[in-house]
């Protein structure tokens, strides 16, 4: 397959569009509905070299008991960990509807052989991962080896099979122009990605609204061309409710109702959940509570 950059993105235009989204105002009931939706879409994440079983167990408890004082809150969508922690997470979450997501393919750099990447993916799945978050080979992308990037994604998707959903991390902070981000999105989608995801969280800038819009437009064009829905996951840097709600509005106005669901849209975040909880409590009680009332796991 011969790949060329076809779909152009204009930087000024895309940022103008975002400026309109960020001026939208979500109030009262619609804000509460939005905040609950954000909670249900979070992939609660810990991806640190110093992760331990105990740390992951605590995070899993948080994922399933988000705030005991408010029983009507949804659980988060998934817990996202390194492959070595998948078994621990899987055990902790076995009685809950919270998915286990594992990063794989030599996360975060992706600098390893395909053989090792396949092996790592297989192990994560064997240990109980419901979802795999892979990274693309950015070096290959920049050197124009688009077929390599495509084949790698296709191979990992083949390894995942139809039951395990594959999220493809583009690491947009390393791709440069919006044109590249649009093009990388198309490669990932055509290679079999179930989700496209902005970032590892290890590189700045991570997710931004304009980058997310570029990716959502790629998903939309794919939907109209094939009828197939692809999920979207911005990750990294989304730490407060206001910003998260702006992401939701972007989804609302770009892809519409179908994607406003945690099967199709996720946030990769670690500290976002507590800020959302704080805002929900503020709406219910009329005043802010100290952040010491929210568990930090």
């Amino acid at each position: 397959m011969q790949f060329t950059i076809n779909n152009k993105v204009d930087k000024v235009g895309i940022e103008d569009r975002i400026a309109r989204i960020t001026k939208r105002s979500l109030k009262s009931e619609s804000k509460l509905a939005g905040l609950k939706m954000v909670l249900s879409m979070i992939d609660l994440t810990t991806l640190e070299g110093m992760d331990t079983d105990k740390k992951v167990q605590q995070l899993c408890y948080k994922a399933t008991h988000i705030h005991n004082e408010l029983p009507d809150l949804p659980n988060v969508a998934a817990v996202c960990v390194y492959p070595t922690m998948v078994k621990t997470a899987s055990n902790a979450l076995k009685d809950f509807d919270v998915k286990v997501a594992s990063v794989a393919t030599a996360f975060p750099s992706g600098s390893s052989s395909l053989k090792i990447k396949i092996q790592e993916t297989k192990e994560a799945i064997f240990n109980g991962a419901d979802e795999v978050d892979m990274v693309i080979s950015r070096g290959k992308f920049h050197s124009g080896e688009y077929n390599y990037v495509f084949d790698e994604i296709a191979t990992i998707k083949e390894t995942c099979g139809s039951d395990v959903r594959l999220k493809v991390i583009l690491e947009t902070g390393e791709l440069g122009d919006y044109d590249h981000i649009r093009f990388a999105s198309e490669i990932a989608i055509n290679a079999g990605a179930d989700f496209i995801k902005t970032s590892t969280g290890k590189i700045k800038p991570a997710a931004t609204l304009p980058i997310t819009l570029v990716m959502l437009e790629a998903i939309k064009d794919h939907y109209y061309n094939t009828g197939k829905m692809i999920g979207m996951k911005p990750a990294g840097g989304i730490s407060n409710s206001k910003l998260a709600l702006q992401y939701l509005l972007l989804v609302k106005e770009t892809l519409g109702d179908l994607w406003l669901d945690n099967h199709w849209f996720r946030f990769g975040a670690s500290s976002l959940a507590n800020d959302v909880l704080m805002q929900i409590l503020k709406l219910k009680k009329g005043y802010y509570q100290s952040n010491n009332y929210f568990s930090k796991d």
Partner: protein
Amino acid sequence: MSSKIKPLKYHEKLNFSPSLENTDSLSLKKEYQLFINGRFQKPLSNKYFASINPANENKIAMVAQANEKDVDLAVKAARNSYESHWSKTPPKERAKYIYRIARIIQEKAKELAILETLDGGKPIRESRDIDIPLAAAHFFYYAGWADKLDYAFPNRNPKPLGVVGQIIPWNFPLMMAAWKIAPALATGNTVVLKPAESTSLTALKLAEIIQEADLPDGVVNIITGPGSTGEMIVNHPDIDKIAFTGSTEVGKTIMRSISSTSKKSTMELGGKAANIIFEDAPLDQAVEGVINGIYFNQGHVCCAGSRLFVQESVYELILRKLKDRMQSLVVGDPLDKNTDIGAINSKQQLSTINNYIDIGKKEGADIFQLSCDLPAKGYWCPPTLFTNVSQSHRIAKEEIFGPVLAVQTFRTTEEVITKANNTPFGLSAGVWTDKGSKVFNLTSKLRAGVIWANTYNKFDPTSPFGGYKESGHGREGGLHGLSPYLNIE
């Protein structure tokens, strides 16, 4: 796109709760007088007319109607202040007053934005983010020119004209007042300004601001009334120049009236701009530009991109994207922060727009409108587009001045240049392509005063604005906006 694929839906989840702008900062009088010689004076006509909120048809305030004697008083005040002091005021001093006006507009920005929205029906998002900031920016910009005219026109001894009569439209009431008053003051003229009948209130607030800025009496006079009052200004013998923004029809009448006089003129008239999308354009952003080009301010924009030309190979794609994008436009209460499309400015304008929509249907074009709930009272028109349109359709030829887009296709660059120029108007155009050479080719061949490339409706006081052909003559904004107010050797 396969026919089995369902169009996306946008209205079931996460709908907006009302988010109304707080109007506490607004102070309104029940009755507004004429602003003549630095004071608010009752009209000699003893007549008043009502200013209506087009979003709910409620009366906001009563406004004085100037008759011939009132106009004469205003012109006399302007002449007197021109002769006795304003023409002798050092340019640096003039600048101080203009800066002061700009700063007070900024201080009262919120109140002005609310009033603009109440009186004219435009969304608060636009009056807050566009109209009022641009009005202030215009005063700031021209304040800077006041003492630099000799540098703008070196060795040409620029001198003011005297008393200028200015007549402005209802689509950007305060901003148009700023576009007119700021360069006139910077160049040392005195002013008699008449806002449009349906949107007088922010101009009268501006009169209060001018008073607060201690501008000498009579330098700016603001009088209100219907078109006939404007006619009296045009025909007053002691006026040196007419600056008019409005319809081409009225512009022509004014030009006829002053043709045998020494009055100078600037005319900023109608438009029927072509917005041109090539197949190699950034398509999603082009669609955004089309939306912004035609639905901004309910389409009440003389430079609105009301004719869309799409290269045939991407026609279906653009149409799909356009219709999807229209789904997330919010039509409703202009004071709601989420409103994209507010009320049509007046009952009369609504009937003009509806008449054109009927004409479009009768001529055989296909209509697509956003289906949305419209408020029971007030004047409303949902965003509308017509496909299957040809050059000879009236909706593609005449200025509608509403949220109505006529979509046509083209095959080659030459073809679209011919079609785009095939209009008596020539105010603005838009070009969407990723190819720089194509941009330069089109911008040199399109007969329009303002051409945007890969964007639309961007305004800045430093940039001149004005038309070719029946869209008018003279420029406003930038250095070019100074010369229409000066005698230059």
